[in-house]
Structure formats: C-alpha cells, structure tokens
C-alpha cells in the first residue's frame, strides 16, 4: 500500500460499503468491485460493519476489505460517516458509497466518480429516478414523495434524495455538518451540502432489485419515511 503522504499526487478511491447483517451477500459484492478504474491510481474497499450479529466483518476481511466495526448498530447514516472518516484516514481523495446488499451496479462506479475526478463536483448522487425502469412502483412513490418534501422544505431539487450510491471529494467532507445516523442521513447530506455550498451533480444509475435487496427489513418503508421527515424537521429546528 502506498503511503498517503507520498510526494507524488495519487488518486486514491475508497469504496465504502456500510453493512449490517450482510454475511450472505457481502463476499459477492466485494468480489464484484473493480480492481482498476481509469483515472484512479489505487482502490481501497472499506466495509463498515454496523454492529452485525452475523459474520459480515470476518467475511469482508477475507475478501480483502478494510473492516471497521461499530460496536453497536447505529444505522446506515453513521456507518457512512465512519466510512468517510476511514477513507480520509487512509489517504483517499475520492470516496464512493454503495449499499452492501448488491442493489448497485459496481460497473457504474466510474460514472458516479467521474465528475469528482474531473474537479466538477464535491458530491455526486447516483440517481435511480433519472431512468426508473425496473424500480418497484411503491419505491418510486416513496422516493418521489421524499424528493418533493426536500424541494418544498429546503428548496433543494433532487431526482433521488434517497440514493445511497454517491461519490464524494474527500477533502470537502469535513465541511458537512451531519448529525443523524439512520436513513434520514441521505437527505441530511443534501441539506448539509447546500449549507456548505457544495457543487452537487446527479448522474443516472440503474438499481438492481433482487429478492435479497427487497427482503424484509431492507430498504425504507412508507412508515419509516414519516420518521425520517420528523427527524429532519427536528434537525432543522434545533440546528
């Protein structure tokens, strides 16, 4: 592994996978990640084991990932923040977050990170709704409702505010004021990005819906969306 303090400027990409009880899928997801990408000198895989009760962490480690473990399950939002802190610590210049259940296509990582590599964006959101073919109608409804809420409440236009497939310019991440730790973090990041005057770009991505990724307890329910809205309102009121 090259030293992050090496004098030659290198582009290091950290692929961050927040994972909770994903032992059944994490190995396959890690194996499918690219080893090489144009414009990237080194790729590191970081799995944030969010207090899993199964063998997610050990399996990820055997598949070559750097594993950092939350001692308690705190939610995907905090797992992403921990992943971004780890990315910065290992000297990454660009970070990309993916879901660990295999719903994101690793071949599209290069598309998502391209605007950051080109210096055009601090944050890139991979949007499933720019081309929603194959997306279950209920998920479309939930996502469009969340987008509308974001637009009405904060004046932020996003076609997919709930996407977990995002790329970050790592040096900019410390400017984000983030507090939430659950699914509401996806929306909070967009709000914080607006507050920090980030350059945000959306690119179309394809979401893969399998029996596994849409199984019980995965993704967001309509009821969960109400909790998310309440938490975001409280976040705004209390600063």
């Amino acid at each position, binding site marked *: 592994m090259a030293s992050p303090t090496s004098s030659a400027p290198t582009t290091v990409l950290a692929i961050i996978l927040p994972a909770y009880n994903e032992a059944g899928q994490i190995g396959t997801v890690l194996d499918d990640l690219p080893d090489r990408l144009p414009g990237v000198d080194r790729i590191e895989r970081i799995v944030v084991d969010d207090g899993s009760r199964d063998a997610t962490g050990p399996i990820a480690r055997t598949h070559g990932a750097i594993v950092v473990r939350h001692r308690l399950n705190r939610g995907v939002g905090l797992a992403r923040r921990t992943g971004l802190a780890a990315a910065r*610590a290992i000297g990454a210049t660009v970070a990309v977050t993916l879901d660990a259940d295999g719903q994101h296509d690793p071949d599209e990582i290069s598309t998502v990170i391209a605007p950051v590599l080109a210096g055009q964006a601090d944050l890139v959101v991979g949007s499933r709704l720019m081309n929603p073919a194959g997306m279950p109608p209920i998920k479309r409804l939930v996502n469009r409702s969340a987008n509308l809420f974001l637009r009405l409440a904060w004046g932020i236009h996003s076609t997919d505010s709930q996407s977990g497939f995002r790329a970050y310019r790592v040096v900019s991440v410390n400017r984000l004021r983030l507090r939430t730790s659950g699914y509401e973090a996806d929306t909070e990041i967009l709000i914080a990005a607006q507050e920090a005057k980030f350059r945000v770009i959306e690119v179309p991505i394809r979401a893969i819906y399998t029996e596994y990724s849409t199984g019980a307890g995965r993704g967001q329910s309509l009821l969960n969306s109400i909790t998310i809205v309440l938490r975001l309102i409280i976040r705004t009121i209390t600063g």
Partner: protein
Amino acid sequence: MLATAIVGFFAALVIAKSFDEFRRGREAFPVFLFWVITWLAVLLVAVFPSVTVWLRQEVFGPAVGLGTFFGIALVFLLFLSYRLYLKTDRVERDLNALITQLALRDLPGGQEEKARSNQGSRDQASPHP
C-alpha cells in the same frame, strides 16, 4: 374508584423504582424526594378530589379555573418533553462520536491516529461532528 386505583398503582411503581435507584446510588436524594412528593401529591388529588376545590377557594381564588390548571400542566409537560429531547439528543451524539472513534481503531496501524486527529479538528470546527 378505578382512577384512584390506577393512580395509586403508578404512584407506588414510580416511588418504588425511584427508591431502588436511590438505594443503589444511581439517583440523587433531591431527585428521589422530587418524585416522592410529586406522586404523593398526584395520589392525594386522586383520593381526595375535593383538595382541588379547597385549593381553588383558599389558595388561588375563584378567578383561577380548571382550564388554567390544565394549561399550566400542559406547558409543564411540554417543557419536560423538550428537556428530555435535548438530553437524549446529546447522549445520542456522544454515543455516535464514541462508536465512530472506536471503529476507526480497527484501521491498519498508524492510520487510526490520523483518523483521530482528523476527527478532533472536525469536532473543533463544528459543534455537530
């Protein structure tokens, strides 16, 4: 009668729990005293509802109606909820910071130190890491 029994049950429950916490040294004496006095007062009103009539006539005066009592109680409850929210929010933030710092210790040698210093400068820059 039913209301009195329910209030009595909850009063006994809270006082017993508070006494247990005090006995184990997990609750300060003033806090224990506060809960005992509060719930005994609630129990007194439940057992002798005429106390409220006496209070109104002798202490507050006829100008103070039941609506005022309920209003004050509601404001007090909202204040308590707000205080509780602030406290849980602070505990949650501290817990999140702690869990992240512990997780970053898992990084390969040397990098954890860098992560901690990054986290430290971030904490100074922002009240909400």
